[in-house]
């Protein structure tokens, strides 16, 4: 069964990163949410823990918005 990646990211961002729910949108940039590069790696580890989907470091270089990360992870779902 496919994972709802947006829902998973939203849950992690709200619960672990203390981001207000209404700020977590596809268009929100990680920088705008106050996440630095270490936080983004941390976020992807949490995603991997919940879904088994791995995002590589070099792939993350292109990721600016939450939507970018969701699309990247969705592309890896069978």
């Amino acid at each position: 069964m496919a994972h709802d990646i947006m829902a998973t990211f939203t849950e992690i961002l709200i619960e672990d990163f203390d981001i207000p729910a209404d700020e977590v949108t596809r268009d929100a940039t990680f920088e705008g949410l106050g996440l630095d590069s270490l936080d983004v790696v941390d976020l992807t580890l949490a995603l991997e823990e919940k879904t088994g989907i791995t995002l590589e470091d070099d792939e993350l270089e292109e990721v600016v918005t939450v939507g970018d990360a969701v699309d990247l992870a969705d592309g890896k779902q069978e």
Partner: protein
Amino acid sequence: MTDVVITGRGIISPAGRGVDAAWQGVLSAVSAAAPHPEFTTDDTPVTLACMAPEFDPDAEFGRGTSRRLDRYTHLAMVAGSEALADAGLLAPPSEGADNPGFGGGLVDGVERDRVGVLLGSGIGGAQTWASEYPNYIEKGPRRVSPMFIPKMLSNTAAGVISMRSGARGPNMTVNTACAAGASAMHIGRDLIRSGQADLVIAGGVEAGITGLAMSAFSQMGALTKNDDPSSASRPFDVDRDGFVMGEGAAVVILESIEHAERRGATIFGRLVGAGASADAHHMTAPPEDGGGAILAMQRALHDAGFDPADIDHINAHGTSTPLNDKTEAYAVRQVFGDHRPALASTKGVTGHLLGAAGAVEAIFSLQAIATDTVPATANTQTIDPEIDADVVIGEPRPMPVRAVMSNSFGFGGQNASLVFTA
């Protein structure tokens, strides 16, 4: 050289959170030792520990901040925040700013570039090591948190206090194991004396209560095997058999007297003497002749310009281990001769806070002066006949307390003594 005064104090210790609560806890002489829930269900050989009062770092600092930091940094933030507020050094929060505990940072009129931070810690982020290493072993290198290094580094707490307050003066963490809190105050004071800072946020912090550390200290024979909180930590008692692990943090604001007077700060005491030394002897055992401990005490007296008879009370290192207490009492006798300062160890209540011990005991030393009271050494019933000292037991002793020496001795044979006055 300028006099260095204490203008703020903050503490979170097993005896209580906040200066007044912690001091009342010490005076109560009721041990804070309790079975640690994590260790009563596994094979950890010792289950008693002295934990800091419960607090919720998510609620106090925000989940986003607290999860990026180890417990030892949380404790340092609690004590640092209280000390800065106590000193009247925190500006009100600016609108929309998110800096819980530290308001708008240092107040106007204080030159931020001349405010230092000097913390001591024996271990740093022990719990981060303990929780992250299994990830590496079980899930592999790619699952190691990128937060591991910044969380566990032992200088993170000092760095975070500078980020939160805006202090841009000299910023360091010193490690002399169980003397680290005292060493930090020594070096912090010297930064002020040498003109490198007006103010130093100085103290010690430790959060080392992990199964790994408890097991290791137990394997060394350093922890008591006694699981009765009312007698486990009993410094100088004939039946003492080891220390109880504690955790917590204490921070003081050290300030040049000129700076303190200019801004009308309340003066809680003076750090008039500091002495440091090494045993050059053994990794964990003190030399029988008192070696480095004697030197540290003598140097602190000399630094203060005091004679032994000027010291009314000694807040002893007094860990409740057979070797420390015997050697410390012997060293005190060598330094003080027939003058017998009222000797007490507050570790009967707090357990041994390792790198935070010297810092929490500095605050208890200041409180002894402020209240003219020497706390009783909790739990101690029968003073070891081999110990020739005026150990205060039973009830707190009301007496004039003009000057206090606080001793701290670390593994590696690293020793620190501080002298405080009103």
